[in-house]
């Protein structure tokens, strides 16, 4: 496919790797190839790099201690380690009496997938709902947790509509019930401050490629004293996650965390750009914004359009050099209402006509101009297709 210049407005899907991150990684792909678990100096060099990265990650997520960071291969693996690891551990320790897992209807597929796996293997599961803005009520968690519950998993920010959840309150509810609390912070990392220790969460997952590190690396914050069953067996990461450390990518993740933390004070710049997107898009007739108006990520906006198919809109925009997305499950061409919008009570006809615009490092006013220049016409043209059915 020809490499034409595009306006990339899908940073919630993935992000470009920052040059500083590439530079930090290269020595560990070239000369410092040692195994961080080896005795000799070459190995020690790699170990130092991994531990430096652990500090950088710990700083971004707000850990109390560096040792609370476990590196994984991605955000999904971090979620699986948190949820399955907590569920299995509690089930073993409680001799099968603690076999309940609670999550929400708006979680990322990584969480939904492992929760349904656990359900098929005999665990009790339940899902909390949300309101029309995508917020989960603390009271619903209070009502859902019982003595059999091992873990509650609620994402920090939703990947589609960006709504933020009351993590600190949910965490307090869990603590009071002796339930572990996991939050999937993959989408919020680098966009809003993370305060693992201050919030009192037990587990928190992040992913490298959402914060300008490469794909294939993630991390799980595991509060000191929390024990998880292994999902990938082995002795690495202090017996918490097997597999020789992906040194270069871990270094990249560390560097990206450092950069993200330094950039957090500038989140308002993105917000201003996002607000311009929103004002421009909402000027189109028959459009509406989804997600909480204030309690949400500063970088993204989510819309529904009456009378069109979101997937077809994404193609139309791609042909004009603008990268945006319709929903997480659209690569197959099947335009389905996303589980998130369904949980929010958005009518199917609006949910299938959805569009997500997400900004990030490197986003410029010109990208937004390009989107706003082509979107109204694309919407109008798609709406003018005669109803086929």
């Amino acid at each position, binding site marked *: *496919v020809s490499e034409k210049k595009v306006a990339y407005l899908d940073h919630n899907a993935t992000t470009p790797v920052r040059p500083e991150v590439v530079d930090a990684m290269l020595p560990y792909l070239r000369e410092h190839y040692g195994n961080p678990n080896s005795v000799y100096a070459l190995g020690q060099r790699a170990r130092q790099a991994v531990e430096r990265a652990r500090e950088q990650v710990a700083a971004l997520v707000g850990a109390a201690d560096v040792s609370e960071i476990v590196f994984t291969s991605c955000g999904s693996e971090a979620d699986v380690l948190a949820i399955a690891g907590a569920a299995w551990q509690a089930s073993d320790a409680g001799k099968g009496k603690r076999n309940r897992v609670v999550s929400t209807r708006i979680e990322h597929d990584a969480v939904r997938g492992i929760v349904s796996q656990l359900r098929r293997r005999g665990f009790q599961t339940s899902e909390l709902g949300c309101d029309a803005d995508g917020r989960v009520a603390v009271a619903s968690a209070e009502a859902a947790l019982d003595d059999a519950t091992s873990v509650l998993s609620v994402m920090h920010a939703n990947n589609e509509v960006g709504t933020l959840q009351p993590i600190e309150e949910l965490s307090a509810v869990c603590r009071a019930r002796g339930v572990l609390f996991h939050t999937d912070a993959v989408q919020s990392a680098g966009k809003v401050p993370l305060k693992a220790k201050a919030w009192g969460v037990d587990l928190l997952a992040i992913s490298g490629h959402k914060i300008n590190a490469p794909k294939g690396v993630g991390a799980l914050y595991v509060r000191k004293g929390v024990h998880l069953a292994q999902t990938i067996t082995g002795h690495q990461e202090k017996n918490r996650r097997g597999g020789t450390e992906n040194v270069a990518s871990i270094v990249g993740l560390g560097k990206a965390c450092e950069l993200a933390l330094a950039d957090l004070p500038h989140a308002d710049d993105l917000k201003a750009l996002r607000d311009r997107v929103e004002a421009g898009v909402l000027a189109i007739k028959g459009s509406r914004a989804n997600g909480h108006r204030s309690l949400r990520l500063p970088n993204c906006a989510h819309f529904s359009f009456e009378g069109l198919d979101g997937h077809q809109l994404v*193609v139309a925009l791609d042909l004009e050099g603008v990268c945006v997305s319709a929903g997480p499950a659209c690569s197959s*061409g099947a335009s389905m209402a996303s589980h998130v919008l369904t949980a929010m009570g958005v009518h199917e006809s609006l949910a299938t006509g959805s569009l997500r615009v997400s900004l990030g490092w490197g986003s410029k006013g010109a990208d937004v101009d390009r989107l706003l220049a082509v979107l109204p016409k694309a919407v109008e*043209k*798609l709406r*003018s*297709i005669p109803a086929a059915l």
Partner: protein
Amino acid sequence: VTKRRIVAAMSGGVDSSGAAALLAEQGHEVVGVTLKLLERAETGFGCCGSPADVDDAKRVCEKLGIPHYTVDMAELFAKKVIRPFVEAYLSAQTPNPCVECNRSVKHGHLIALAEAWNCEAVATGHYARVEDGRLLKAADADKDQTYFLHGLTKKELSKALFPVGGLTKSQVREKARALGLRTADKAESQEICFVPGRDVRAFVEAHAPEGASRSGAVKDTAGKELGRHSGLAGFTVGQRKGLGVTAPEPKYVVALEAETNTVVVGSNEETMTKAIVVDAMNWIEPPPPDGRVAARIRHRHAPAMATISGLTGGGEHRLVFDEAQRAPAPGQSVVYYLGELVLGGGVIIRRGDRP
């Protein structure tokens, strides 16, 4: 050649791959599109839109350096193609689902979508030609697919491109091979892409609103019962095999009578028909003043000279063949030609030589 943005409908087969390749070679901005025509539960039978075919189409586009998208038209396909197909069989007709698919889906909704994407045309891998807005038979007479394209209007034809229509099948394969396309030697697709294993009867039964298998009589033309059948669906006029009757002479289906749920069989002679009644006409060109046409009554049938009579504003008319034709099947398309030119076509309603 001025560079145009064109949608290439790609099934994952060699013909549509070749079509996309030819356009890309001419310097056009080609947008590869594979239609998802079947619901998830029905894919995986090696029919169009199955994951393996989508993958082939994607890989071909990658090779050609063009983008590829998948578009879900399963709901439209179910309503416009599959449901009428099932209903036709249930009412003792033999449908041509490809005609409706081309009209409603590939050259209907997809053209509309392409326009919305600022694409000027939709290219498919059909063997047919369009010149000056007129639909012509393919250069490769053996592969000609105009029989399935007669339902298009002039407006749709103005947006349709058939890049392989001027080539033979082997030339298309050679082209694909030369470009290293993985579909170059791929087997020919089945006639009805959505019927797994060509088992029409099983498909109709699975999709019939209420059981298709109402057993009934197999009779000869004199009305004598020769045996029983387990449901009309799947029988076609002219069919010889699978009738479940033994007779000294070979027997063929002469007619399917929906009202009495009867399969009427007879000799080969009795399938011969001098005239048919045609309706649901789509005229691409004006009807010829003298009513003389070459009529094709099934795919690959050598068009037979005939005369149109009693053409009304509504379109229903009789078609009288110069020489009797074997087994025109109600529900099948009949397409009228003047040499290479496709004049239009309609649907065979019934035999026209008996009241």
